[in-house]
């Protein structure tokens, strides 16, 4: 310590002339260097900032001293402290005549400010002036600052000068001008688009540095629209060739490589230009081959070029010879000891297998090594590779691995990513629904709050719909296994809320479906959940709604729960409690029709024409009611239309409205309010769906008063619309319109939460019928309806969209059902002994969430040595009779259960083995991407079944091949 201090002093003294910095500054740096804690450092800096503030405000500070003060300011800001008081001094310093001071000013400004800062306006002027300077160093400094500070609005101010500088005699200036233009292009492409030809011109610059710099903007432009630059392919190839042949000055060499950074940039550009273009790619093969030949795998930079070459080759039109060279280099990377190269090798492999999946085969070992590596980065990269090569045959292994890894990481960002990848793979390739549900359980359990809510809806949908129309038995077994697994999980203390929602929903819907568990048991469980998660409103609502929706006979504890919740602070919860109480007061028939069993996915038929009301309408007309006029023909009632559109806007998006408010008009509300007062009984018309008649009541009760209110306001100010603006959709304002729409909103919310909750749809349809009545009865009602449902159609649309979206999101499921229906009969013909694939897992122990072998992957590794293959074989009863064909153990979790389920007899030997294999592949193919794939896999399975590959099982073929 002492020594350090003396040295520091020594340095300070020695450098008085050398660095041009004062002792003060050196002391500052030194004391910070010596600071033992962050707090101490903060104290020092705070003191320093105080000091600087005083000094900077002093008008008599010499300019040279000023420079140093500024640097100290930069230093303080670099350490994370706020030095904004000095920013203006930095701006001032850019005005200075002396170059070092000016440069320091620009440096400080570029570090302090960015383009959005207010002070930039002051700098723009200086930059403009400096760009015209005779001293090229000043111009350089100004251009550097311009790259950092000129935002979109300021571009026109400096653009002409920058363009002029493209022809500057000094190459350093030309280069910077190109970079500045590039930056402007990135900021605002439209303002520079007419100057694009300049970049082409600069490509032929005499100075290689300028040419190299020009590649940056060109790369951007080409990424944007490759087709308009196809003519440059030949020039790029020529340049690359010249660079590779060492035609550039040796000063561009880097570790004996000729201009490697330019080469890499060129390769990037060629990769874009050659992508999917056979002709353009044709020009490139020769030079790429040259680079590969000359490739230097001993130095880092050589490897960087080779890697870029591989990227280029995997992007352009494939050429077998090039691919071979690329594969060879990749294998060199993978075999290297350096982690960096392994990493690049894994990445390169990921690119190459897109073109030729067979390449991965020979690197199986290296890939497994990387997966096991303690280096996290390498591991993640390998998971990325595995993700790219997942197929229906290896999905189980890979996803299991991913989940295992996912459980142990804390990095939220990556956890989200890997969870969504697991879900994606599981949705795409799941060999069986059973497996899918178990996988999803695991994902939700460990990363539930990070997974997109859509995934949860998809899962519920899958459970509800099952996976084919024809095998109801399999579906119900699937459900009961889901119920079983959820019942086991539900007691666990910490479950993510989205997962709990799924559990509650499934238990509520299907808990009693197979008669295994009694309703009270399920309800008890659900009540436990509701009580355990008192803070979590959504979960509570879910558990609660479903628990009660299921059974009509109330349990005492349930009753207490409902009572408790009807006094809840959450309005939503309270409302639901009341709704349910009202519902339970109805007769049994009504409850059943409102909450049908297992109908969550059946479409609710909404009679859009409301034909059942015809007789009623007729009657009303006969009684003298005004006939219904469609809104479009109602020219006289502008206020209704505008009111409605206003409402719509309000409901659909809470955005700024740019059009002015209309003048308040005395609407015909007042005139008709009287009429509407007399018509409330009209609401009590019987509606086919008896559900939510309590709500109808509520509305009909509140209507007259609400109308009166709005009528009153209609004369002076239309406050009802305004009021709505303040009241959030969940809290009702005084008008009936908003209260109703608030219910609408919460219903919509619950719907999107629950995915399949039927009640809201029922409710909606009842609203629909109400609307019809309303519109026909009076203009006032029309208006009310308009305000009520102004948002409703939009909402319904959105809902429809959402449902369509979910349908789209599960294309794999649908596709799977489509493809599974075709190959299945054939398979069943061939192997009558094999059970339907889905039943394989559902035999004796449908709850077995983990396959018999704890870690299939480690088994795979074990299988590498031929001797160790036996334990796996003995583990599976079906295979023990014959030599283990490799495919067998991949499906080892399917086969044994299938065998023990009794449908396949293990003693049948080869034939049976084959059949079970087929069953297994059937399972695998069922979710597979295409029919063709499935057939192919079937063929390979057969082949393997007939000719076992002896004691050298190439398991990795399944994983990697």
């Amino acid at each position, binding site marked *: 310590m002492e020594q350090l201090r003396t040295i520091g002093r020594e340095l300070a003294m020695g450098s008085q002339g050398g660095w041009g910095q004062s002792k003060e500054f050196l002391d500052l740096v030194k004391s910070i260097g010596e600071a033992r804690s962050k707090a101490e450092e903060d104290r020092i800096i705070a003191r320093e900032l105080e000091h600087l503030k005083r000094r900077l405000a002093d008008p008599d500070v010499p300019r040279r001293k000023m420079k140093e003060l500024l640097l100290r300011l930069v230093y303080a800001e670099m350490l994370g402290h706020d030095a904004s008081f000095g920013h203006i001094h930095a701006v001032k310093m850019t005005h200075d005549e002396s170059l070092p001071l000016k440069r320091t000013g620009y440096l400080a400004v570029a570090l302090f400010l960015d383009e959005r800062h207010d002070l930039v306006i002051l700098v723009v002027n200086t930059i403009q002036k400096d760009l015209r300077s005779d001293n090229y160093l000043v111009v350089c400094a100004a251009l550097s600052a311009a790259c950092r500070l000129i935002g979109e609005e300021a571009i026109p101010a400096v653009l002409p000068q920058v363009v002029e500088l493209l022809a500057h005699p000094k190459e350093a200036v030309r280069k910077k001008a190109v970079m500045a233009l590039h930056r402007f292009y990135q900021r605002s492409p439209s303002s520079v688009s007419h100057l694009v030809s300049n970049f082409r011109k600069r490509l032929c610059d005499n100075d290689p540095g300028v040419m190299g710099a020009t590649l940056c903007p060109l790369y951007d432009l080409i990424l944007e629209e490759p087709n308009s630059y196809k003519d440059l392919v030949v020039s790029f190839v020529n340049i690359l060739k010249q660079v590779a042949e060492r035609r550039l000055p040796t000063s561009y060499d880097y570790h004996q490589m000729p201009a490697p950074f330019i080469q890499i940039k060129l390769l990037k550009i060629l990769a874009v230009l050659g992508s999917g273009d056979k002709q353009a790619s044709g020009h490139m093969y020769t030079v790429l081959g040259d680079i590969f030949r000359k490739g230097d795998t001993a130095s880092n*930079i050589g490897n960087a070029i080779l890697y870029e070459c591989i990227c280029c080759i995997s992007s352009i039109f494939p050429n077998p010879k090039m691919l071979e060279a690329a594969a060879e280099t990749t294998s060199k990377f993978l075999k290297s000891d350096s982690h960096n190269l392994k990493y690049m090798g894994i990445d390169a492999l990921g690119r190459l297998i897109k073109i030729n999946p067979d390449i991965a085969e020979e690197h199986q070992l290296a890939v497994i090594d990387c997966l096991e590596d303690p280096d996290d980065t390498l591991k993640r990269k390998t998971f990325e590779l595995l993700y790219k090569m997942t197929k229906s045959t290896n999905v189980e292994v890979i996803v299991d691995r991913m989940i295992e890894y996912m459980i142990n990481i804390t990095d939220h960002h990556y956890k989200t990513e890997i969870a969504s990848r697991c879900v994606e793979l599981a949705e795409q390739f799941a060999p069986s629904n059973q497996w899918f549900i178990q996988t999803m359980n695991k994902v939700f359990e460990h990363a539930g709050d990070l997974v997109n809510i859509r995934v949860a809806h998809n899962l519920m949908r899958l459970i509800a719909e099952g996976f084919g129309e024809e095998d109801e038995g399999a579906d119900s077994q699937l459900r009961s296994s889901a119920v079983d697994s959820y019942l086991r999980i539900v007691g666990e203390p910490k479950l993510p809320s989205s997962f709990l929602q799924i559990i509650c929903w499934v238990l509520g819907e299907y808990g009693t479906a197979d008669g295994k568990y009694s309703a009270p048991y399920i309800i008890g469980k659900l009540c436990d959940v509701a009580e355990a998660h008192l803070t979590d409103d959504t979960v509570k609502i879910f558990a609660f709604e479903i628990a009660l929706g299921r059974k009509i006979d109330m349990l005492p504890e349930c009753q207490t729960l409902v009572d408790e919740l009807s006094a809840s602070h959450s309005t939503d919860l309270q409302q639901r409690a009341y709704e349910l109480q009202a519902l339970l007061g109805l007769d049994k028939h009504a409850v059943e029709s409102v909450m049908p069993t297992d109908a969550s996915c059946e479409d609710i038929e909404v009679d859009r024409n409301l034909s059942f009301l015809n007789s009623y309408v007729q009657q009303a007309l006969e009684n003298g009611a005004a006939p219904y006029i469609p809104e479009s023909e109602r020219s006289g009632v502008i206020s209704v239309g505008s009111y409605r559109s206003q409402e719509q806007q309000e409901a659909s998006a809470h955005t700024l409205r740019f059009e002015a408010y209309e003048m308040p008009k005395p609407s015909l509300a007042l005139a008709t309010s009287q009429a509407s007062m007399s018509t409330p009984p009209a609401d009590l018309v019987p509606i086919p769906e008896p559900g939510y008649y309590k709500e109808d009541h509520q509305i009909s009760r509140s209507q007259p008063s609400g109308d009166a209110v709005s009528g009153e306001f209609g004369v002076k100010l239309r406050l009802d619309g305004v009021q709505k603006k303040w009241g959030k959709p969940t809290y009702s304002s005084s008008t009936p319109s908003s209260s109703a729409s608030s219910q609408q909103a919460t219903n919509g919310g619950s719907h999107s939460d629950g995915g399949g909750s039927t009640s809201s749809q029922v409710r909606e349809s009842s609203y629909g019928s109400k609307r019809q009545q309303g519109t026909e009865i009076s203009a006032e009602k029309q208006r009310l309806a308009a305000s009520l449902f102004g948002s409703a159609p939009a909402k319904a649309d959105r809902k429809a969209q959402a449902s369509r979206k979910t349908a789209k999101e599960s294309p794999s499921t649908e596709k799977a059902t489509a493809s599974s229906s075709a190959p299945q009969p054939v398979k069943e013909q061939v192997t009558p002994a094999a059970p339907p694939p889905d039943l394989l897992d559902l035999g004796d122990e449908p709850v077995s969430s983990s396959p018999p072998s704890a870690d299939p992957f480690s088994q795979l590794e074990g299988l590498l040595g031929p001797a160790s293959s036996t334990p796996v074989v003995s583990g599976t009863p079906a295979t023990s009779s014959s030599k283990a064909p490799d495919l067998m153990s991949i499906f080892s979790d399917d086969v044994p259960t299938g065998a023990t389920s009794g449908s396949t007899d293990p003693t049948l030997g080869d034939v049976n083995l084959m059949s079970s294999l087929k069953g297994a592949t059937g399972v695998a193919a069922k979710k597979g991407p295409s029919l063709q794939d499935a057939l192919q896999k079937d063929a390979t399975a057969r082949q393997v079944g007939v000719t076992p590959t002896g004691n050298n099982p190439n398991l990795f073929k399944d994983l990697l091949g």
Partner: protein
Amino acid sequence: LSVSCWKKRIPCSNITFLRCCQIHFVLLISRQGKVRLTKWYTPYPQKQRSKVIKEISSLVLSRGPKLCNFVDWQGYRVVYKRYASLYFCMCIDPADNELETLQIIHHYVEILDRYFGNVCELDLIFNFHKAYFILDEILIAGELHESNKKAVLRLVTTQYNEKDKPACTFMCSCEMHYWVALRIGVMIYHDVVE
């Protein structure tokens, strides 16, 4: 895929980039986690900067010596290299060429070494502004725009008259000082031999 995923996570959401620059920021951190130099090519507000520095230094400093020089961070990739007691870090997009970035770091260090003459951490601490100037001559707006060492050095030296040049001879004579022993230059020649 990777390109789309980082585009969503641009730190300042009110600015949209066509394609973000190659390098988002450069950090120099000492082994004790002290910041020696920061340069931001993507705009980060001051508050976020401290957070980023903290996260990255804890990520990078905790890594073992034999592991690879790349780390995933918030959907970006941080390429780092240790020279003596200093870590040079650059943040890039995951789709970029990591090895190339590693060489850009090395390129920068080599130029620093030539300029300061056997550069050590102390040089950078006391002359951080010069380190900034040199960086500006190599990287503009996050893109490498000059790979010619001589051209960079020529430009940097012409901007400073002789008086401003560092007294490297003095530095070299301080053999007894432990900071001086941690010469970055020593590492450079190791790397070349590698």
